[in-house]
């Protein structure tokens, strides 16, 4: 390890705001050659923003950056790449129809002037892949590659341009344990070859196993810096979360009698789409008065499961029963008629029409179903009275039924969506990431509503990547891995380690504490 040498990159006093959100505040960071530096923090702690600044995607509001002791100011990724800084984004930046070689060579045109010289480029890329132990056919279009191979292509892209520093944003989120091991071997090899590596992550286990040096971010600021071994798991968690590992709140006691089943899913399967993951034989159950959490590493079928249950995609096989009635494949509108509330994971795509008013968004599903209209004409007065009440009840600001949805903050938009979906007192609520991107106040409000709904005897299926969130409210947790149920159990019977293991582990452990 060459930690004592001149820093490869020094960032000092970096701050960056997006509107009211302060993504980075006065961050200092020093990176060295030959080291894996781990940037640790919760979702939204400002890790990606900081690295996007280093990569030239964003300009910092304040602060300065030095590379090899020289001050730099990057206006674009091109500038950063020219100074040997490259980044692999969490969502891969690959052109699906280009071959591996084309993707790797893209943007590196200064090497051979005008002509592409395909054979020469192909040979170079193949040689480079070989050198770093990647087994790739460089003539294959990348859309045909596995996720692991695509990630290798991303790394090759940077190496081909002679990057000294490779930034990887959540590189393990898409990989299984075996692939993660292989990735770490590759990263080590890169460090041995004198490069510097940054991995952005929120997983403690990885940090402990691969990092030479660690910087922990919390709410946009540096919460801790350490060398490997200076902080243990608990210390890292404390720095990352600002408190001990989540305390288990008093959940509702077991009801004596078995509550009636609200939702029963059997053998649900869905083939993979062009950009969607498959589901294999998913089975789960939600009882009345119960919150069931769905979790897993992003891209393991949670989104697809929620969409299938919401009627947005039709499963290829399996049955979905609602209070014993088969509702497989029916539309979201029909599901609403059956007493299902739906909060999707992408509000702006599915749940809201930003150009329309709040009252119209509140009535989005009801009006096409025939409510609030007579002889085809809307009954605006009734709709407004109803909307005003919902807006007041849900503390939406502004409580003006005619305000444009798009003029509201994300938190207030989400309150409108929640208000709509709870307005009919649903038997079942399907909620995906209901508080993602919300400020603390709005998030708290949304959760209180969900808990109230449970207390009134409804069943709730809550898709969340945030284990704290689940531990705070969920009665049971279902972990998906590779589109299959990897673990299912009562929250109090499970440890976070078990859940983490099930999220990334290859083997499917037997269910714990099944009732």
């Amino acid at each position, binding site marked *: 390890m060459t930690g004592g040498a001149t820093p490869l990159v020094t960032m000092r006093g970096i701050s960056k705001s997006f509107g009211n959100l302060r993504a980075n505040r006065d961050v200092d960071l020093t990176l060295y050659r030959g080291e894996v530096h781990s940037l640790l923090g919760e979702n939204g702690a400002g890790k990606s923003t900081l690295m996007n600044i280093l990569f030239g995607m964003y300009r910092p509001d304040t602060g300065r950056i030095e590379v090899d002791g020289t001050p730099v100011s990057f206006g674009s990724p091109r500038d950063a790449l020219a100074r040997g800084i490259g980044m692999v984004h969490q969502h891969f930046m690959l052109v699906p129809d280009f071959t591996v070689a084309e993707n790797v060579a893209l943007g590196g*045109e200064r090497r051979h002037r005008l002509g592409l010289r395909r054979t020469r480029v192909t040979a170079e890329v193949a040689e480079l892949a070989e050198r770093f132990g990647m087994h790739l056919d460089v003539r294959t279009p990348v859309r045909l590659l596995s996720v692991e191979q695509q990630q290798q292509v991303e790394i090759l892209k940077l190496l081909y341009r002679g990057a000294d520093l490779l930034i990887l944003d959540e590189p393990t989120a898409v990989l299984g344990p075996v692939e993660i091991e292989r990735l770490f071997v590759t990263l080590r090899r890169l460090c041995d070859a004198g490069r510097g590596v940054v991995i952005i992550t929120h997983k403690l286990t990885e940090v402990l196993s691969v990092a030479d040096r660690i910087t922990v971010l919390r709410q946009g600021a540096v919460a801790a810096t350490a060398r490997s071994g200076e902080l243990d798991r608990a210390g890292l968690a404390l720095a990352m979360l600002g408190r001990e590992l989540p305390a288990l709140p008093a959940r509702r006691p077991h009801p004596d009698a078995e509550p009636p089943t609200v939702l029963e899913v059997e053998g649900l399967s869905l083939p993979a789409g062009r950009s969607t993951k498959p589901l294999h034989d998913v089975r789960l159950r939600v009882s009345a008065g119960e919150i069931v959490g769905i979790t897993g590493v992003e891209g393991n079928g949670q989104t697809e499961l929620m969409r299938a249950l919401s009627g947005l995609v039709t499963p290829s096989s399996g049955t979905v029963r609602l209070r014993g009635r088969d509702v497989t494949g029916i539309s979201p509108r029909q599901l609403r008629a059956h007493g299902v509330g739906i909060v999707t994971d992408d509000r702006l795509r599915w749940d809201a029409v930003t150009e329309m008013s709040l009252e119209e968004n509140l009535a989005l599903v009801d009006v096409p179903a025939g409510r609030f209209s007579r002889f085809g004409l809307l009954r605006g007065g009734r709709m407004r009275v109803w909307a005003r009440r919902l807006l007041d009840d849900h503390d939406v600001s502004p409580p003006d039924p005619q305000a444009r949805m798009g003029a509201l903050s994300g938190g207030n938009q989400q309150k409108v969506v929640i208000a709509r979906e709870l307005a009919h007192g649903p038997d079942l609520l399907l909620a995906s990431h209901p508080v993602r991107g919300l400020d603390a106040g709005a998030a708290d409000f949304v959760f209180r509503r969900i808990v109230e709904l449970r207390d009134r005897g409804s069943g709730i299926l809550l898709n969340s990547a945030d284990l704290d969130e689940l531990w705070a409210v969920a009665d049971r947790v279902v972990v998906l891995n590779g589109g299959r149920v990897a673990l299912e159990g009562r929250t109090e019977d499970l440890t976070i380690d078990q859940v983490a293991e099930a999220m990334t582990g290859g083997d499917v452990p037997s269910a714990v504490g099944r009732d």
Partner: protein
Amino acid sequence: MSQAALVTILSTGVLLAVPVLWAALGELIVEKSGTLNLGVEGVMLIGAATAALVVKAGAGFAAAALVSLPVGALCGAVLAYLYVSRRTDQIVTGILFNLVALGLTTTLFARYLNGVGEVSTAPRYAVPLLSRIPVVGPSLFTQTPLFYLSVAAAVLVLLAVHGTWFGLGLLSAGEQPRAAETAGIDVIRVRWKALLAGNALAGLGGACIVLTQSGAFLPNITNGQGYIALAVVVLGRFKPAYIVLGAVFFGIANAFQFQLQSLPFAQGYPRQLWLALPYIATIVAVTLSRSARYPAAVGRPYVPATRRG
């Protein structure tokens, strides 16, 4: 059908294909970069008027063709400013641009080009030897230089798009602009360049109508050929070779239609039915080629990540 009639149809068909071919090649470049340019119709119209003005001013056919290129590029700059820099809706902007082009060229026509004086078209050149092949010779190898050049241009476009670094950047901007940007490609710049080059070719295409077919400008002389070029690009599955074939197919359909009108059996049918053929063929073509995969990002204005922060 006699051999003479066949030669007439083929030879006229190729002649009629030339403007559409130039415009379609230009539009191919533009769409590959991620922009849908309905304004190609208006640019052709302006190119045609430009050529007529240059010829009227006393310069030769070659000069007229050459001048139409920068004029087309100028139109491209206007469109690029709107589509790419101002990020306006591409379909609406294209249609409105065509309205302006129609107004502009008709105004110019009324002021400078009215009174069809010297009707003449560019001469044809017979390629030595090849032009003596029966049927093929007189149809393919006895054409205006603008035809030979357009085929050469198709080859050049193919090479430029698939054999150069610029082409690789162009394709990435049209497929996955975010990926292109992170690789260091300036997506905005690439799309601007594509619109400049593509519309220069569309301008030349318009000039061909005047220089090789009509010999004079008339209001709205393009008559939808720009839109047909758009259809040819899709029908040609975004491949230059197929686009050449597609353009020639439309040209021959058009020539066939002219020829049919003069045949005895056609007399029983209304003339308009034959005139309608190219438009019906276009509808059939776009319906059949709906499965053709457009560049993934076509029609969507790009906001660079660096401009968001």
